[in-house]
Structure formats: C-alpha cells, structure tokens
C-alpha cells in the first residue's frame, strides 16, 4: 500500500513536471537551487581530518572539489575553502549543508545559485525522492540503475570506472597455492554477476584497466572455464576450503560473494563467504577500487599501490612515461599471479531531476561537475 501511494505520487509529480516544462533554451540559464541527496554522513569538512568510512571520505572529497580550486600533488586540497566554484553557506554536521556560488570564481561563476545537500539518505529514499521530483541529483547504486530507469527516474551512467576484484591474503594456506588461485579465477562466471546482480549495469573484468582506458582489456579472458578450474583444483592435495570475506556494510559485495560461493561449486571448489571482522580469518577478500585517473598508467599505478603490497607481489613502479606495451605488461604480470582476480567493472550511476541540464557524468578522477549544470525554468 505504501509503495503504491509512492508510485501514484510519482506519476502525478511526473505529469505535473511535464506539463509545467518551459520551452527549452540551449544556452545555460543562471539561477536556482540544486537539491542533492547523499547516502554518506559527513561529520567535518576540515581537509586535515580523514574519515575512516570510505563512503564518508568519498562524499567529503566530492564536496571539497566544489569548495577548493586546486589540489596538491598528493590529492589533498590546496588553498582556502571557498576558492572553488562554491563557498560554504550553511553547515549542520551530519545532516545538511548549503553551498553558494562563488561570484568571483576564476573558472566562471556556477550557473546555479546554490546547492543544498542532505546527508544520510538511504539509497531507496533517494530513489523515491527522485521519482517524486523533490531532489535534482543523487547517486544511485549501479545494481539499482535498471530498476530506477523502469520507475521513470532519469538515469545517467559514467564509463566503467570502479573495479570489483578478489585480493588474496599472503601466508594463508590455500591462497598461497597458485593453482588454487587460478582455479578460483577460472571458475567464476563474471557475466552472470553482471547480468543477475548488477542488472547489466557493468562489464565483466579480466584485467585491471577497462577497455576504454588502455584498449587492451579484450586481451584478458573473462569467460568461466569450469573444466580448467576443476582440473587445477583436483591437483591440490587434501580438502582445501577457501574463506571469502566482504565488507559488512556493502550489500553489493555480499551479493557477489554469495553468487561466487554458489557458482564455483561446479568446479568442485569449496568456498564459504562471510563478513570481514577482526575475529574471522579469510583467504581472499572482495575489494572495490575506484579509478582516480583516466590515464591508464596512473590508474594502474594507483591500483598497484593499494593491491600489490597486500598481495605479496614485489614490483618496481612504472615509469612516468610508460608505453602502452609496458602498461599492458605490468597489468599482465599482476593478473597472471592470480593474487588479484578482477571480477567486474562498475560505472558510477546518477539519478537526475527533469529540470537538470548540461549534465555530463564525470570521468575517472573527476568530481561531480555541478558548477556546469543549470536548471530549466518551469513555466508559471
């Protein structure tokens, strides 16, 4: 009953918005307040404080990119808050904030007058608010994108830029056997994960860079090879089991882990999945890595930096001017070790209100381009 009333409200709202739309103008219009909802709860905008929660850290970085004009080489923000396209107008820690356009921003004043950001909105609430037209911009989990589109939400997806992978823990029994790692990698049906868990909003990943970046992803196979996996697994003595860990608060990781546990059985692999905690040991864990740069060399270097030490691989840094072949070679070295097993690529998915114009999904490493969007005026 509750859902029905939401849908009815959404339908009425869409009708009203449709009827009220003005003749469109192509040139950007100044004015209006952009209403944004985020899932994260941000406790401080002080750039010195680093939140432990990755969702809070990511949201804080997005807002920082609107407040600051420049970054230091290490990625931290340079200069003073308010030197960017917006300055902070109102702040209620953990609840909401308002940004106002910086009239003297050197990149040109943003088109909207202000951005109101409400924090701590769950994904399902963000979707409902998008349907009702009470919010202009919100991130949507990739696995919810298709459903959102079917409900009439205007959906925009970036190129794939977040890698979901398995990372083995060195020194943990079965994970130290290369045959076991390769068997697990071969046994995983990545296409099924994309189809059934991500609802086709993603791509199977065989390498560490997406096809659009270095153009070599097609050289890494992604199809499941159950026969090969079975053969490799049968060579391992004893009755090994693999423990797969995932983050407690990540429902997507949980769904992927559970799917893997089921599909690898066809290859005879025994795998149990569970939430990562200090008390529980795991042989391999799910990781989500967001590309911080569109450039293949930089993206791979960033991934290597976070994955390679934990996986026990010993690799020299790639040179700054690494060629496409060198980048491919490094990627091949890491993937061939099977200490890191790429699974799927995810895009970043956004829900947009009907009045939002000139929106382009950001490339890897770019923040929300909210200074460039403008709001269509509704007729009186």
């Amino acid at each position: 009953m509750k859902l029905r009333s939401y849908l009815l409200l959404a339908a009425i709202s869409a009708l009203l918005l449709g009827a009220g739309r003005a003749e469109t103008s192509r040139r950007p219009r100044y004015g209006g307040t952009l209403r944004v909802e985020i899932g994260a709860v941000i406790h401080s905008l002080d750039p010195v404080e680093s939140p432990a929660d990755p969702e809070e850290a990511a949201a804080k970085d997005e807002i920082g990119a609107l407040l600051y004009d420049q970054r230091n080489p290490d990625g931290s923000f340079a200069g003073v808050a308010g030197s960017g396209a917006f300055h902070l107008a109102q702040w209620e820690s953990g609840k909401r904030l308002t940004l106002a356009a910086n009239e003297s921003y050197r990149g040109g004043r943003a088109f909207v007058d202000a951005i109101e950001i409400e924090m701590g909105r769950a994904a399902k609430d963000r979707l409902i608010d998008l349907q009702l037209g009470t919010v202009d911009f919100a991130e949507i989990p990739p696995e919810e994108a298709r459903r959102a589109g079917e409900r009439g939400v205007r959906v925009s997806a970036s190129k794939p830029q977040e890698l979901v992978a398995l990372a083995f823990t060195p020194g943990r029994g079965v994970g130290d056997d290369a045959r076991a790692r390769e068997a697990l990698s071969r046994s995983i049906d990545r296409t099924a994960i994309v189809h059934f868990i991500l609802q086709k909003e993603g791509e199977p990943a065989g390498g560490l860079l997406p096809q659009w970046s270095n153009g070599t992803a097609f050289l890494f196979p992604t199809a499941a090879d159950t026969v090969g996996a079975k053969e490799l697994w049968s060579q391992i003595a004893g009755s090994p089991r693999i423990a797969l860990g995932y983050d407690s608060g990540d429902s997507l990781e949980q769904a992927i882990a559970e799917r893997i546990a089921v599909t690898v059985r066809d290859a005879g692999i025994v795998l149990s999945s569970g939430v990562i905690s200090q008390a529980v040991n795991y042989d391999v864990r799910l990781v989500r890595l967001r590309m911080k740069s569109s450039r293949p060399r930089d993206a791979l270097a960033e991934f290597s930096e976070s994955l390679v030490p934990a996986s026990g691989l010993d690799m020299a840094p790639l040179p700054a001017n690494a060629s496409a072949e060198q980048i491919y070679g490094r990627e091949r070295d890491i993937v061939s070790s099977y200490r890191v097993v790429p699974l799927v690529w995810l895009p970043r998915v956004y829900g947009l209100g009907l009045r939002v114009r000139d929106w382009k999904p950001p490339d890897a490493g770019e923040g929300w381009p909210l200074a460039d969007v403008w709001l269509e005026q509704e007729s009186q």
Partner: protein
Amino acid sequence: MYSLAQKSAAADGQARSFSLDLSDVSQAAPVELAQIRRTFEDDLTARGMKPAAPPVDMQIEISISRTLVGFTLVAEIHRGDVQLVAIVPVASEESAAPQPGAQLGLERKVLWQQVSPLLDFDQIAADADHTFWYFLEPERLIVYEFDGGQQVLHDAQPIPRRYAARDLRGWIEASDATHVSAFVGAGRCDAVWNPSLTMECRENSGQQWPMGPVSWTFTPGRNYFSGAITVSTSLQAKFPPFYSSASPLAATSGQGPSRRVIAGVDGQAQFFEGSAEAVSAFDGWGSDIASIAGACGSGWQVVATGSGDWTQQDQMQLYEIRDRKAVAIGEPIEFPGPTLSVWTTDDGKSARVISRNLESGLYEASIVSVACGN
C-alpha cells in the same frame, strides 16, 4: 602500420611464413580492415616473410581497439610457445567535410577546427588577394593573414578576463580588414593589424554591444543581455532579458528594427512589433538566433538553433517571419554537437557559427547560408 610491422618482424626470429587475423574490437574503426591487411602483408613480405595458411611459423592477430585518446592497433604474435603483444596508435586522418544542406533551406561550410574554445570568428577580404581571419578565444584574439590562399602572417594578443562567466560570450565587430573590436563578456578590445597586432582592452563602458543600427546591453558576469536596446542616444527600448535577438536587416529588406524577435532567458522566443508587449511567440526555438538576407526568399529570414542542451547534437532551422508567424523553410541542418554562438556575417547574407563537435571534441567555425535549390 609500419611500426607494427617492424615490431612483428622483430619478433619473427627465423620465421618465414605467417598468418594474419584481423578484428575490430572498437566496433568503430576509422580505417578499412582490408586496407590494414594489405598494408601489413606488403610490409612483412618486403621483410622476406610470406603470408600462408596455417600451419605457419608465426600467427598474428591484429585488433583495432579504442582507448581514451584514440584508436590503437594491438598485435598478438604467437610463435611456438612464445606470445608477444605489440601496441601502436593509429594516426587519424579525419577531416571535416563541408556539410551540404537540403535543396531548399540552409547549408553549412566548416572553415576551421581547433582544440581550444572559440567564441567567434570573422573572415574579411582586404583586397582580391589578401584575406584576414580573426579568431576570438576566451583569453586572446588571433589573426591570420592569407595571401592567395597561403598563410603569410600570424599574431595574437591576450585578453584580460573581466567578470568571468562560465558561459563566456564573445563577438567580433570589424570596421575593415585591419581594424576590429572584440567584445568579450564585460570587456572590449580594439585591435589594429599593422602588420603586427596591437590591441587595447578596457571595461566596456555602458556594456553596449553595437549591432548594426542599434546596440544591446550586456549583463556582466552572465551570458545574456539585459533587454535594453539602444536605438539612439535618446531612445532606448526595453525587452525581457535575452540571449540573442534578430530584427530585419534594413539594408536588404527596407524594414526597420521596430520588428524584433528575442530568444529570451526564460526559454521563450517572442515577437515584438513596435511595442514592449510581445505579439506572438514561436515554439521550439533555441537560444541563438540571427537574421540573414539570403539570395532567395522574399521576407525577413531568421536562423534559429534547436532546443536541448550542450550535451546533445544541435540543429539549425531557417524561418521566414510573415504576419507575426514564423514559417519554417526547408529542412533543418544538423550539427554534430551544440552550437555555441550564432552571429550575422558582416554582409548580412549568412551566419557565422561556432559549434562543438561532440565526436571529436573540436570547436568548429562555420558559415551557414541559405541554399536556394533549383
């Protein structure tokens, strides 16, 4: 292609025969697969190798792939147990061909493409041999002098940014081939070519942009005009704020500026006739319009961009304004991206258009004129 063959040949060892498989994983290859095959086989044959059916000494699989910066050729070379991968970029030979218009309507000719943003351009003939091309970028004015089609001189001068706007507007007004004024946002620069470019920039007092017999009042820090149109020192007409406006070209139509269409900031295109009250509105017009006096047609003709935003392709439609109505003439012409500025040319016969090609990312300067058909 040469360097890929070179890399393949370097991997051959004592190989004397090879097989070649080609595929297009980009699904948008800018070159014919057959052409790549021919070139590659010719190159390896010249290095003493022969194409053959398997079994062969060396199997080569070439894929055309797409990256962030363009296309690449990826060669997987299998020789016994050894597998090598060679990657080389593909040089693109894309060029923008002029786009012919429909028989009756508009035609577009692309004159210039560049990576940097463009605000406006002008092409002025000094005499039968010499032509000057001016290009207005957000932070500089550039001039090229051409003698019989050959570029002979080139210079540029910087423009200070005043009241920077995110959608910066710019316009070039030419007094003659060597004297131009550039209006950029709240600033005005007067330039002289003699034969190097000297330029003086200042705040545009009164924010007046001279447009033929009238001038429009620009709103500093924004991308629109306030709506005040100065007809003479003692007469100013007030319209709603607008992005662009068009009135009949007096020199060609004999009609004065009392009739006017404005593309308003509110997204409405409205028609005014001698008063501050709109007498009609036109649907589906975008924010940039300009009058043109084509060689055919009898009335007041206006080109208008389409609706949509800058993430989409655009189109331009020719209209004739008759009896307070806008009548579409012919089919619209398509642009491979948004049109960013549209101004009537100095002779009034066409429109100069800056647009952005979303496929290539390049800014394009083009002339749009009326095609009279048969």
